[in-house]
């Protein structure tokens, strides 16, 4: 039977119905992929799904999540075999790459790997993981930083590692401070600093760095609130840190914010600050910039990309408290709101680029299949 285009098996941690940056990225990626020329459909097998899946775009079929690792591997293999022919495997997370590479080998089809951030630069990587990445026909990375860090430990032709940044939802656009949030946080007439992120135990996002600058900021701008949006296990530590620095009454924790309220939280804020040290990209920066508020980010990681190397916001060395404090002060002194500053990351541009990458990938497919079939490179040891 003639097929209208490629059939793709996508192995992802979470996508439709998931929370957080990676789930968002996967949704954007898979939706855009399904609408590429010559793509028939994408079969998505997620590990997790926090919420019931309401709607998926045409061309995407998301299977039921399988949480246990072993069951997931078996399920992935089973899906691959029962849904043949599969033209290529998309792997949405580095942790899954050995599985994805194995399946792409079994099916003798090429592999497309997506990498994000912390999973690339934080852990020791096994030889299996490295070789699996090296077997990929194409790797897309959310940022230049993640790409650079990946290339430090993976021996792959850099020409095969491309950057495809996050994109931003049109719900994020400039607007007045919403009354219901001004009321909820008693923020009327006050300046609002905002950080939005999971409060993870990894502690790299930099909330603590902001809290440490607060005493200095409050000297100049006593009516400032620091809103920490997002839930997670690190909250108790941050709460006691705020107490320790005597700023507890100026720091408010919102807990998890429902997605539909999130754009309003950005509009409530005057300054979005997240001096993170290990950001793969930081989609929240795009959301903040799209609402036109001032943005401060760390200069040592993928945040650079989100802020266009400083063209769209202020970059500071996250380890330098002085630099951070003066950047926030400057922003509070002049909390000017602009129009949408995230225009260069709009979904149509993302989709166009993905389409171009898909074309390149398709052109390479033939050759890489042959390469996959050949035995692994013999390696030299010291």
């Amino acid at each position, binding site marked *: 039977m003639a097929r209208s285009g490629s059939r793709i098996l996508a192995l992802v941690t979470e996508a439709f119905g998931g929370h957080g940056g990676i789930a968002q990225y996967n949704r954007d990626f898979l939706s855009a992929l399904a609408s590429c020329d010559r793509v028939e459909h994408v079969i998505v097998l997620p590990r997790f799904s926090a919420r019931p899946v309401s709607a998926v775009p045409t061309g995407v079929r998301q299977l039921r999540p399988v949480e246990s690792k072993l069951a997931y591997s078996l399920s992935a293999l089973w899906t691959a075999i029962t849904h043949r022919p599969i033209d290529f495997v998309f792997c949405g997370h580095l942790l899954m790459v050995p599985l994805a590479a194995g399946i792409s080998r079994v099916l003798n089809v090429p592999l497309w790997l997506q990498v994000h951030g912390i999973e690339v630069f934080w852990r020791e990587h096994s030889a299996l993981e490295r070789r699996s990445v090296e077997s990929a026909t194409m790797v897309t*990375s959310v*940022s*230049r930083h993640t*790409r*650079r860090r990946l*290339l*430090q*430990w993976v*021996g792959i*032709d*850099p*020409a*095969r*590692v*491309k*950057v495809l*940044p996050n994109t931003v939802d049109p719900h994020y656009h400039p607007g007045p401070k919403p009354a219901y949030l001004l009321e909820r946080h008693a923020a009327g007439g006050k300046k609002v600093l905002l950080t939005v992120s999971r409060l993870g135990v990894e502690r790299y996002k930099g909330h603590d760095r902001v809290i440490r600058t607060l005493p200095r900021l409050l000297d100049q701008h006593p009516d400032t609130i620091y809103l920490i949006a997002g839930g997670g296990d690190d909250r108790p530590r941050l709460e006691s840190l705020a107490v320790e620095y005597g700023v507890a009454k100026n720091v408010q924790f919102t807990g998890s914010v429902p997605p539909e309220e999130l754009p309003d939280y950005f509009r409530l804020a005057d300054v979005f600050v997240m001096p993170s040290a290990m950001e793969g990209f930081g989609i929240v920066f795009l959301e903040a910039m799209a609402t036109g508020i001032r943005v401060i980010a760390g200069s040592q990681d993928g945040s650079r*990309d989100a802020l*266009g*190397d400083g*063209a769209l916001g202020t970059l500071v060395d996250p380890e330098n408290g002085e630099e951070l404090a003066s950047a926030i002060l400057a922003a509070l002194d002049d909390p000017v709101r602009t129009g949408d500053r995230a225009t*260069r*990351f709009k979904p149509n*541009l993302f989709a*166009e*680029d993905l389409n*171009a*990458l898909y074309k*390149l990938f398709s052109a390479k497919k033939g050759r890489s299949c042959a390469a996959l079939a050949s035995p692994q*490179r*013999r*390696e*030299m*040891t*010291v």
Partner: protein
Amino acid sequence: MCGIAGIYAYHYAANPVDRAELRRIRDHMAARGPDGLGEWYSQDERVAFGHRRLTIIDLSERGAQPMVSADGKLVLTFNGEIYNYRQLRASLEAKGRRFRTQTDTEVLLHLYAEKGEAMVHDLRGMFAFGLWDAEKRALLLARDPYGIKPLYYADDGWTVRFASQVKALLAAGKVSRDPEPAGLVGFCLFGSVPEPFTTYQEIRALPAGSTLWVDRVGTHETKQYFSIADTYCRTEAASSPTNDEGQQLGAREGLLDSVRHHLVADVPVGAFLSSGIDSGALVGLMRDAGQREIQTVTVAFEEFRGRREDEAPIAAEIAARYGTRHTTRIVTEQEFRNDLPKILEAMDQPTIDGLNTWFVSKAARELGLKVAISGLGGDELFGGYPSFRDVPLCVRALAVPGRIPGLGDLIQLLLTSVFSQSLNPKAAGLLKYGGSYAGAYFLRRGLFMPWELKAVIGADTARLGLRRLNPIRHIEALLKPKPRSSFCRVAALESSLYMRNQLLRDTDWASMAHSLEVRVPLVDSKLLSQFASITAGNGSQSKHLLANSPRVPLPPKVVERPKTGFTTPIQSWLQRDNRIQEWRRVPSLAAYKCAWARRWAFQVSAATAGA
């Protein structure tokens, strides 16, 4: 002959080109092109080209670069010389193409418009260029067959930058300085950094004889359009003139043709002269090609005066025979000491060589020369190195025992653990490597052996770099397809490794630092196709073909003189220099018998790593 630079912000999210950045990259190469500078920016500010010019052909302003085609669709920034540009131009004009200048640069623009990237096959010469095709919205980078002219690029995932020098790319601060272990390991193994690696992860050399496209999805994979091994294979299949006389006639014709092409210039062309056959014969052929005034220059050392190593007397004799204006330039230890910091600064990538080229280029420039002919490449083309004899011998002796699985590794481990200090490290690797051409060549040219690297650059860097470089495979890849004769195999290896990564690269930085263009008539793809079949038959006896080519023969003592390795007193000057004693900290280097080149390599990598 110039310095080229460019930036292409190809990614949709990338910032537009930063003009100040382009200028910093370009002007870091001021010495490559002191006579002029230029820049070009696309209307949307996504593409920028820069150029530093050393005027040699069409000295007028019309020859300035970057050059835009008459229809505005193509832009070129080009470093090098196209020696057959007049023929190319004539055939393009015959097709109705109209020219505005007398330059080879403009020929490239028209040739691309006519043939697209396939144009590279028509070019005879040395070149590296970046060409912007506005209709395709794509950048083409290309480099000559042998890699005489350098070209480096850095793709960070958003923006690609290219330049003639690694250090220029780093000058503007936007290219990552993350080290590339494969480049560092390669330098320690070979004495020069093997392309495509550099010592920086983000910066790659465009391999010799390759092209590269960059478009909206960034850099594509590099495409090789010329391979030395492949040329040898094809000419082996073809027949060659059998009698001596026919060979000699063919050789003279080919050599004279190459020399004639290499004299194309609107400024005087001089020559480096040593006591050897290669440079001497070239000077003779320059005369035969009709050049009347020839400035020749030889470097000599006070320490060698009256000794066998002194090249000056024989060089002077050759000069007298061909009636050149000859200069013997004495280099002293004091001058060397003064120049050393400048040398390390100009050294674009770590290398254990290039010092001599530095001084002879300096001398040539002092004499007012902008262009000099060099005999580089003669030993590769005519089998002048001992490796042409040693490598095949080694392979024949060890091919059978070398095939016993694990035996080589075992013996290497045993020998290195038992005789860790006293044994020559290469002896331990004899069985492990000696049985194949790639392995035997590695033994012949290797500076350090892989198991020694730990002590020199640290275990992690060594492990990572060895895995990525995979040295034996790296060498084997240059023998694909594999020529049949042992001569052609060694010639292909010498030309694709030692000559490319060491001799040619060193010649480039050391001469360009003095704004001098060095031309190498013996490094020429057309000449190679002509000679491959002849030399393959004659083996290492081929040098006489070169020696007998000038109409006025070389003095007999030049031809009969046994080949001595080129020696200078620089080694002992370095030994005495108290600024470079860091090698003493590494026990294996401080060992009494350690070869000086290894200490110098360590010193150089330390100096460049800090830069």
